[in-house]
């Protein structure tokens, strides 16, 4: 579990961060949320789809890293087996959160339950004078980037829904070992509907900068075969 607390110099001055496996968060996750711009890199390696969040029903953009619920074909104790490590899978105890009362201000938080925290070894968050270390600044910049990229997902998704371009699908493949691999509740771009879209709508998608991501998602469907290949190799 995690326990995010606002980062506070007086409370957290002595905290250090141990170098640790960069994808420890992603151990038993079959899907990993990504931001919109990340789609462009992620689509080369993983199927990029939408799934619904269990507790809000809202769409999340994710990469599939397995072919069964909670199965990861990329996690290993030696490290991530893919080239692109989804940003939200890279563990960092630093995250940004919205203040409930004001959706425009963000605060920097630290996960005080994170196994990466230590008072003895690792790199310091604050320097001896109590100022933010360069290391902390880097972590904050990463967190900001992650946050901003995730914020782009909703408008993109709303646009697709408005144009009726998303369709639900289930993934159902048979592996070499005879097992039936199934994932339900996935949503992706409906290519047929995209091809029928009238000109004005297409221009709207282009002007809003959505087209590259639409095509990235479409192309990424070919990665389902790569997942299956990986599964077959791992289960041989």
């Amino acid at each position, binding site marked *: 579990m995690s326990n995010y607390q606002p980062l506070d110099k007086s409370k957290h001055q002595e905290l250090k961060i141990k170098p640790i496996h960069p994808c420890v968060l992603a151990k038993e996750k079959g899907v990993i949320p990504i931001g919109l711009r990340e789609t462009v890199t992620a689509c080369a390696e993983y199927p990029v789809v939408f799934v*619904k*969040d*269990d*507790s*809000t*029903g*809202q769409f999340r953009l994710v990469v599939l890293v397995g072919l069964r619920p909670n199965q990861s074909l990329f996690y290993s104790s030696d490290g991530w087996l893919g080239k692109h490590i989804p940003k939200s899978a890279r563990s960092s105890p630093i995250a940004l959160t919205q203040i409930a009362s004001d959706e425009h201000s963000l605060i920097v938080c630290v996960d005080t339950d994170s196994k990466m925290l230590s008072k003895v070894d690792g790199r310091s968050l604050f320097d001896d004078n109590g100022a933010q270390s360069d290391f902390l600044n880097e972590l904050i910049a990463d967190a900001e980037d992650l946050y901003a990229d995730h914020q782009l997902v909703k408008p993109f998704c709303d646009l697709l*829904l408005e144009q009726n371009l*998303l369709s639900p699908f289930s993934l159902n493949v048979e592996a070499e070992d005879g097992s039936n691999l199934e994932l339900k509740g996935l*949503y992706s771009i409906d290519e047929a509907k995209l091809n029928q879209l009238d000109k004005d709508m297409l221009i709207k998608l282009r002007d809003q900068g959505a087209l590259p991501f639409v095509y990235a998602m479409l192309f990424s469907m070919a990665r389902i075969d790569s997942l299956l290949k990986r599964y077959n190799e791992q289960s041989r």
Partner: protein
Amino acid sequence: MKKSSDKINSIVIVGGGSAGWITACILAKKFDCSDQANRLQITVVESPDIPIVGVGEGTWPTMRRTLEAIGVSENDFIRNCQATFKQGTQFFDWKNNSQNSRYFNLFSSIFDPSDFNLAPYWMMSGAKEGLSYADAVSAQGYACENFLAPKRITSKAFEAHQSYAYHLDAGRFSEFLKDHAIKNLGVNLTLANVVDAQTCEEGYLTAVVTREGSNISGDFFIDCTGFKSLLIGEKLGVNFNELGDILPNDRAVTMQVPYQDPNQEIACVTKSTAREAGWIWDIGLQTRRGVGYVYSSSFLTDDQAEQTLRSYVGLEADNLSARVIPMKVGRREKFWHKNCLAIGLSAAFIEPLEASAIFLIEAAANMVSDIFPASRSAMSLSADMFNQSFDFRWTRTIDFIKMHYVLSQRSDTDYWLAARELSGIPDSLQAKLDLWEQRPISKYDFSDINEPFPFESYQYVLYGMGRVPKDLPATMYTKANMANERFQQVKRARELICDGLPKHRELINQVCQFGFQSI
């Protein structure tokens, strides 16, 4: 050559309660009135002074289809109408007046009984071990007992894991539909009090006359004026046939009971509790419950009824006011006469047990939209068809409601004894009951497409009340193995389904905050 006035170009709906606005929405959507080029105009005339009846909070699953068809979002509907989910009705103390007499009439069973009827096998096995019919065939009773919702926030709008209808706030519902009809469906609204109507020589209505001075003319008129029946009754004089000798309940006393705690569980069924001279409904909305005692004034005074209702609610009733609503129980001899059609309370009303009124409004609006005559010359054929259909639907509705009383073994008051007196039981009902003493209910008992209540509802009520045929010849029911397998599957399905379902209150909160997706 036909005169141009023969064509039907304008519809005037008088009355802005649930009936008026449901009808306006269904017709406007069907005839695409938001399209400027469309020549068919729909106008609703609503009195700014006469309030709507303001009750009618229970619906049937047909409402899902209706809302989807008229193009409203389920999220908006739930947020604006205080709406909650309804998975059926739970009856208390109807069988007899002992403490443990309760049963469910649910909206969905795991297996479709018209495909393979489990009822006889339940009678020969489960029933003997005390398993209720509802639990033998459905997971919904269990869900209701545990305040579970019928779906999850990840389900799409209007889609159900388990079939459901809604509970809603009647006042807000009319406002919500009104808004949608005017903004999105191209319906016109006139606020005025209708005092009279004009007719032509052949007795067709030509215009309604308002107190405010203007006449509103039209080619087709729909009377949705509630118990008043301004057009079909007062103006056109179509007879009203009372039904008090079959269903004696003619009054209701109602109360709105706010939840004490905003996190209080919300019941996912309508509760119906039998009392000395009638029954009490109890419906959970988002911030309050709506409760009401429906009773017969021949057996109970208003004060007595209010006292009973207050004691049912308990301490929470102390500072709340109660409202008495007189009910006109009966039906018009005809619902469609000349160019005037009555929908809603103006057409017919029987006591609200099993919430039949709103779904018959939906059915009436759907039917008229489908057989709508393009010209006056086609009017009388459509009218005949409609009248026949709704004569049948009301007859069956009366039978079904009356059945609840006939099956009761309560004998604690004169009211309950009178409810079973033979003279008040329609022959059509008695014939069925006699048949069902001999054999299980069959899907062939309900082969008419206009049948208002489904086969399953009769099973739930009859078997919930403990009425099963005396002996079933085992030689006729030879698929016991298959049945047992299905009973096991129902049990497993119950665990599987109910495991993943959120609490009713939790789902309502999620819908209010996030909402269902449309896919």
